[in-house]
């Protein structure tokens, strides 16, 4: 994405379009709170900030570490790496995951690779370039200090993973191989075939299991965090449910870390795992942690399309396929039901090549996704009818096979093409593949400062669960980098500054904050089981997903978002009066688990719509129909929206009333980089 012709947004450019300042779309849906700012990043040159912060962060003597306890929720790259590292340092760590083993966290499904500014190819890469690409890729909506640090520690990650035995791809000389990714001009992506996430996660998992054996880490599998305990203004523990016995457990500690991943499943269909959920983050939000930019969602262009109403999940096909595949739809709507092989060349519309001649099929994810949607909305989608129209476009390897031979394509993409055939029953060497965008990642998450501490003292948030590094759009191969950066190299330094004030005064299980949190959890479970209505949890989840996808998906408008908010509020009323959950609370009960997650997704969905409604600009993955250029491209309004929208819970913590959320703005200040408008034509 770096070779785009940049045009600096000049002041009179904004005069061409109505300035967003003329509107307050979300008026009535929110209250404006005090502005906030990150106070932890040191001032000075961006290249020195992390070194300064590490030096200034107070130390904890090794003998004192064993008197300090840390709860970490989630065992993906961010949580697993942190558990291992903090265990090695000598703290007492309690690690929680809902899966039956920490090794199954959804980081495992990442395919493509992990970026690092090693510059092994001597092709001009550097910490600064990785920083620059990431800020720009995020459409200038991330916090520059955090991103610079991410780029800075990226090289340490590769060293660490290699030492753990992660089998990265290598060249014949035995040195590490790299590939290019996501349109950047340097080769900085380290990979392990199409299973990089799996190999990195197993590395972190093994390091963590070593600490379990050594006694520094205790793992709680099949446990779900249902509430955070905030006592006297500090996060001091969690309430968790043992998913096998149903026991409600209190776990207390000096500090709590949420590494609980993203909330893409608010859309019901996504590439996330079935169990991925927002509950840990949302319960913290309800207790005072701000939720930042919740509407920033990454919709990945190359996924296998929905085949019918039964669909439970979507599967990603690596974006590397766009290197050789050509994307098209029929020019005429009446051809859409035909066998694509019978549609002659002149009747095909290679629309990305047509609209973006200089980038063609390799435009960034947000643009490729939106254009696929436009084609289908025009009635030129292909594949089976799902609902009332066809949702798919062709990704065709015919020309690449003719040019390079079938063997070459097989060697490059075989496992992906196999997976495609397994899921669809169609042979992609003979019939063009069908793809469609799907929700893949969320850039939004809990607000954190430079230390990764949320607005609740003692509650730290890492990985996809926080918001800080990717702005409005994440570049490929950067999620793994961020998870491991946070877990191995950032949190262990920043958390010690907080812990150097500990151990904190012991609180007992009879502390009012504990008993209240427990009572809330128990009452909620009791409520789910006693509504005894007529609809399953899944039916509510599916309906929520339809609303979110339709109105808060690839294109958002004020009108649609307001409609969605009304629909979600109605759905919420129905959920709490007509839900049907069978079984009991004192055993494994998957419907009960889902009920809690869907209840939280419904509230999150409403906040996402309010956030999207407020942000009357288009940036990265957030496209507002009202804010586009004459050519239909995304148009930012830096004069109005160069801020992080950090939302404070405005409702009553104990009830289902969301109240009116309070918006705190954190201005984004760029000292090391100039804001520009992206262009790919």
């Amino acid at each position, binding site marked *: 994405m770096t070779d785009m012709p940049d045009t600096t947004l000049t002041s009179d450019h904004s005069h061409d379009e109505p300035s967003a300042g003329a509107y307050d779309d979300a008026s009535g849906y929110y209250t404006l709170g005090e502005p906030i700012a990150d106070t932890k990043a040191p001032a000075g040159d961006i290249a020195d900030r992390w070194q300064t912060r590490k030096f200034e962060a107070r130390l904890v003597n090794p003998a004192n570490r064993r008197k300090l306890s840390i709860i970490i929720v989630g065992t993906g790259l961010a949580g697993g790496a942190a558990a291992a590292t903090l265990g*090695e340092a000598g703290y007492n760590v309690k690690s929680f995951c809902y*899966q039956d083993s920490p090794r199954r966290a959804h980081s495992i499904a990442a395919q493509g690779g992990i970026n690092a500014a090693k510059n092994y190819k001597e092709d001009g890469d550097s910490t600064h370039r990785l920083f620059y690409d990431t800020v720009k890729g995020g459409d200038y909506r991330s916090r520059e200090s955090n991103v610079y640090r991410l780029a800075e520690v990226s090289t340490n990650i590769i060293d660490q993973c290699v030492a753990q035995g992660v*089998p990265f791809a290598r060249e014949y000389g035995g040195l590490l191989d790299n590939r290019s990714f996501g349109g950047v001009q340097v080769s900085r992506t380290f990979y392990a075939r199409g299973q990089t996430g799996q190999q990195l996660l197993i590395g972190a998992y093994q*390091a963590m299991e070593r600490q379990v054996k050594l006694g520094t880490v205790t793992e709680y599998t099949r446990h779900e965090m249902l509430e955070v305990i905030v006592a006297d203004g500090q996060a001091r523990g969690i309430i968790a449910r043992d998913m096998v016995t149903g026991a409600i457990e209190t776990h207390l500690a000096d500090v709590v870390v949420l590494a609980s991943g993203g909330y893409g499943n608010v859309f019901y269909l996504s590439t996330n795992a079935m169990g991925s959920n927002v509950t840990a983050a949302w319960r913290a939000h309800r207790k005072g942690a701000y939720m930042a930019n919740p509407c920033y969602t990454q919709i990945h262009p190359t996924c296998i399309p929905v085949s019918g109403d039964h669909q439970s999940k979507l599967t990603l096909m690596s974006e590397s396929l766009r290197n050789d595949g050509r994307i098209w739809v029929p020019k005429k709507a009446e051809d859409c039901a035909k066998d694509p092989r019978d549609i002659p060349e002149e009747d095909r519309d290679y629309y990305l090549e047509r609209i973006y001649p200089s980038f063609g099929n390799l435009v960034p994810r947000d643009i490729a996704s939106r254009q696929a949607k436009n084609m289908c909305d025009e009635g030129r989608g292909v594949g089976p009818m799902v609902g009332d129209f066809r949702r798919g476009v062709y990704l065709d390897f015919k020309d690449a096979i003719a040019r390079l031979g079938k063997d070459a394509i097989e060697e490059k993409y075989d496992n992906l093409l196999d997976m495609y055939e397994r899921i669809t*029953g169609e042979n992609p060497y003979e019939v063009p593949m069908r793809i469609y965008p799907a929700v893949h990642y969320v850039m939004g998450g809990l607000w954190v400062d430079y230390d990764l501490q949320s607005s609740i003292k003692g509650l730290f948030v890492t990985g996809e669960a926080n918001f800080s590094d990717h702005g409005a759009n994440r570049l490929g191969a950067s999620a793994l980098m961020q998870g491991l950066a946070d877990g191995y190299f950032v949190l262990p330094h920043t958390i010690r500054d907080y812990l150097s004030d500990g151990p904190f005064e012991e609180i007992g299980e009879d502390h009012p904050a504990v008993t209240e949190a427990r009572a809330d959890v128990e009452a909620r479970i009791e409520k789910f089981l006693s509504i005894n209505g007529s609809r399953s949890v899944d039916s509510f989840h599916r309906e929520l997903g339809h609303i979110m996808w339709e109105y808060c998906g690839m294109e958002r408008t004020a009108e649609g978002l307001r409609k969605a908010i009304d629909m979600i509020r109605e759905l919420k009323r129905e959920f709490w009066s007509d839900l049907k959950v069978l079984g009991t609370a004192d055993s494994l009960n998957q419907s009960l688990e889902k009920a809690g997650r869907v209840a939280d997704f419904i509230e999150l969905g409403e906040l996402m719509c309010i956030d999207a409604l407020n942000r009357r600009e288009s940036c990265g993955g957030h496209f507002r129909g009202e804010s586009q250029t004459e050519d239909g491209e995304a148009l930012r309004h830096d004069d109005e929206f160069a801020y992080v929208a950090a939302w404070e819970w405005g409702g009553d913590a104990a009830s289902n009333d969301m109240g009116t959320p309070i918006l705190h703005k954190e201005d984004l200040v760029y000292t090391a980089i100039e804001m520009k408008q992206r262009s790919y034509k």
Partner: protein
Amino acid sequence: MNLTLKIWRQTDAVDKGKIHTYEVAGISQDMSFLEMLDVLNEQLNELGEEPIAFDSDCREGICGMCSLMINGEPHGPEVTTTCQLHMRSFNDGDTITIEPWRSGAFPVVKDLVVDRSAFDRIIQSGGYISANTGSAPEANSVPVPRDNAVRAFNVATCIGCGACVAACPNGSASLFLGAKITHLGELPQGQPERWSRVVDMTAQHDYEGFGGCTNIGECAAACPKEIPLDVISQLNRDLRTAMKHGH
């Protein structure tokens, strides 16, 4: 298509459990096997019968959570995970028997869900390279011959699902164990702990109640990631060498 499902139901670890028979209709061949079970569960919920508990998470064949015995075969008739098995592998009118993994070392938690924490404990006993965060040398300071790197990767693709154990007449986890021994043993970084690792992990494997390997090969045939049987030869060779060296 219409199907008859014979499904193992067991309320908890101590319940005796038995097969229940259900009918499902209108199943599309594009559904995955687990989506077919989702349809059944919606039906049961409607009828007031508690849905069937089964494990699944990523539903794209990589997390290793799904674990069904389908007509007596782990993950069913294709070489893939249960979640990637699609209904086009079955015919209208089929009767399908669905059971949890069968192994004493994987006790049933409920219905089709089993406890595989024994695998975590095997890893804890030595399935790692001791390299504290921050202590690593520059990544390219230790070249790894490409062939070793490729073999290490191929066996490191194990997803820890336990199909090998479920397939083995002796309930052995030797394929799982051999895969980890081979992965770490192929790499220069894995050499310092190579001999203690194989001894400790094998001891834990036996302690957990997994059986010994008698070279039947059902494990490799059932493995959705096609981990080759030769990792067990590697395991035996490393174990013999380690013992010879007094570990």
